[in-house]
């Protein structure tokens, strides 16, 4: 134990120290070797511009290298691998894509993913909006918001354990220790092993992500609601508008842009949902989703072709958001 702590500490010092050394060192070297001090006047200007032309690349160089190796190159490589066989040695062209659209596993993943995409962002955004609005003018609203926000700090795996305990099942004779089945029994129902009941188990897995993401929606939308001009609200209160009318006719239209951003952000997260399904069912009982399917293809079937195909399909799904983000960023830059 102690030895490992020491090793960890050494590793941390090396990693962190090494990266600091790079920046400080390379900047010092640049200043030293391309110094204009004492150089003839005509050379000074030349050296100055050369030095200041190189420096940006020291600043962005490491970042650029990391992005190219870990994100840009892989995008093209995965695209290539998706047209190749399981070892990634020979081209099989569209075989993997044909597999994708004819295999049962893939199709049920797509259907489940669509369900996730419809339900999770919508429910999280809706709950987030309602909670943000309700807690806005309550004196203990901050405490309530913190409690609802808290699941955001919990890992998907931790959250899965929390909810697996909620869904726990004991035989009909014994006391239920999972709160869901205890409630079912209390209302006179039959206890069930819920996560093994197709279709409904999908919803139960989605509940976990909704539970986590509502806090995110609440915080962003809460800030937007506080941004709605006070006099607009006051004016409509004086006009005799009810609380509900104000919410639907004034608040929601005002913050519509933010609602869309929140909804899209959660949508992208949902596309990549992996940990929850992996921890709860590993895709059994008709709960497979694309990200988990990809993991299974990659490690259990050791097929880089089909795994890459699934990844490419995920990539295609986020492409519209990506293009939109780049476009709107361009507009704000200009």
């Amino acid at each position, binding site marked *: 134990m102690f030895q490992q702590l020491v090793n960890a500490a050494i590793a941390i010092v090396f990693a962190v120290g090494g990266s600091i050394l790079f920046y400080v060192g390379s900047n010092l070297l640049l200043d030293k070797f391309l110094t204009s001090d004492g150089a003839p006047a005509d050379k000074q200007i030349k050296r100055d511009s050369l030095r200041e032309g190189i420096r940006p690349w020291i600043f962005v160089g490491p970042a650029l290298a990391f992005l190219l190796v*870990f994100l840009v190159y892989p995008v093209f490589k995965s695209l290539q691998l998706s047209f190749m066989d399981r070892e990634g040695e020979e081209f099989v062209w569209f075989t993997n894509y044909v597999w994708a659209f004819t295999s049962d596993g893939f199709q049920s993943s797509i259907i489940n993913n669509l369900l996730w995409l419809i339900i999770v962002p919508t429910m999280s955004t809706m709950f987030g909006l309602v909670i943000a609005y309700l807690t806005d003018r309550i004196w203990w609203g901050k405490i309530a918001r913190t409690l609802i926000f808290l699941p955001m*700090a919990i890992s998907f795996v931790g959250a899965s354990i929390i909810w697996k305990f909620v869904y726990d099942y004991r035989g009909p004779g014994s006391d239920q220790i999972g709160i869901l089945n205890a409630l079912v029994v209390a209302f006179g129902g039959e206890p069930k092993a819920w996560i093994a009941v197709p279709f409904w188990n999908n919803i139960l897995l989605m509940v976990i992500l909704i539970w986590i993401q509502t806090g995110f929606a609440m915080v962003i939308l809460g800030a937007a609601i506080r941004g709605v001009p006070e006099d607009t609200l006051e004016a409509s209160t004086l006009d005799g508008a009810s609380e509900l009318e104000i919410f639907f006719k004034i608040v929601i239209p005002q913050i519509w842009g933010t609602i869309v951003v929140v909804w899209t952000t959660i949508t992208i997260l949902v596309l990549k949902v992996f940990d929850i399904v992996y921890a709860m069912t590993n895709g059994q009982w008709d709960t497979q989703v694309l*990200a988990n399917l990809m993991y299974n293809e990659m490690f259990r079937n050791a097929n880089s072709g089909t795994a890459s195909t699934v990844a490419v399909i995920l990539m295609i799904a986020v492409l519209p958001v990506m293009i939109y983000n780049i476009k709107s960023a361009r507009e704000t830059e200009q």
Partner: protein
Amino acid sequence: MSIEAHSTKTAAVTKQAMVIILVMLWTIPTVGLLVSSVRDKDQLSVSGWWSALTASESQEVYRLPKEDVQTPSDNGYLIVDEIFDDQSKAIISTWGPTAKTLSDFAAGETMTLDDGSQMTVNEDGSIEWVNDEPFTHNRGPRVFYQVKTPPRFTLDNYREVLKSEGVGRAFINTFTVTIPATFIPILIAAFAAYALAWMRFKGRLFFLAMIIGLIVVPLQMSLIPVLRLFADIGAITGMPSKSYITVWLAHTGFGLPLAIYLLRNYMASLPKDIIESAYMDGATHFQIFMKMILPLSMPALASFAIFQFLWVWNDLLVAAVFLGQGEGKTVMTQQLIELLGSRGDNWEILTSGAFISIAVPIVVFLSMQKYFVRGLLAGSVKGG
């Protein structure tokens, strides 16, 4: 009270009631985990955590000791025994010689056995068994009893999970992954963000667009190509293809787009005059960055640090792919997955293990919530 005022009051009460219900829905699952993790494991497996404060009733069996513990006394030969240890405050209500006749005798009553010996089981679990002749049995008879056990809370689950279930180790491993994987991307991103905000160079706008695009690229696209790359490098240099170094590098790569984006936006919003005047005074960009921009950007750095810390601490996929498993490597999330598989029904293990893994991010989150929220508001384009 006017009707109008009355209706606003009702509305306010309904509002508060709704919030209370929602807050309960959101907190009850976690409370259940926490309560269960400190309950006695035998009680945890037979009763719901919501009944943790009430005594639990159960039916148990106890075997009496052999003849060698008997002592001669005034009334004959005597065997004295205790069913429970000293700490237990369990109370026996009824008992009997078989499972079916368990309610035949109340606590404190005396039963006469076939050989004429007499046995008494008391409320506190003490047993007296007397016989005129010396006892000669070599296997003691059994006593079945109905017992009421008061709630027991214990930290034993935590002790067990930390020591024998590998969670203690995994905890340290997770720190080893998380600290460099949080610090390195911040450092690299801070330099790049400064360049993007305040330096003029060719391709700057293209670089910026690329970063915004890369924020949403699914991690899944990178797994196989990067893994292969590490394997190839490993084959040439002899370095292991899955190690702490590879997982740090991977986390750095995946965290950079959002980091650069957040930090650049923040740095670009700093006042232009101070930077330009410092440059005019002959300070190099490196000096301006180290002495002015970095200290000024602390709030943004803190926001991203929390993001990255939570993301790496809670990550399963990147660790599973780029670090793998093993004695000195398995991180908390992986360890929990393993426990879900091997100890799936031992909730005392799962609940305490899960609580250890979520305690750190929760503390970080609560103590730095302000920065976390700021970061969220600044960068709500990233999807995890």
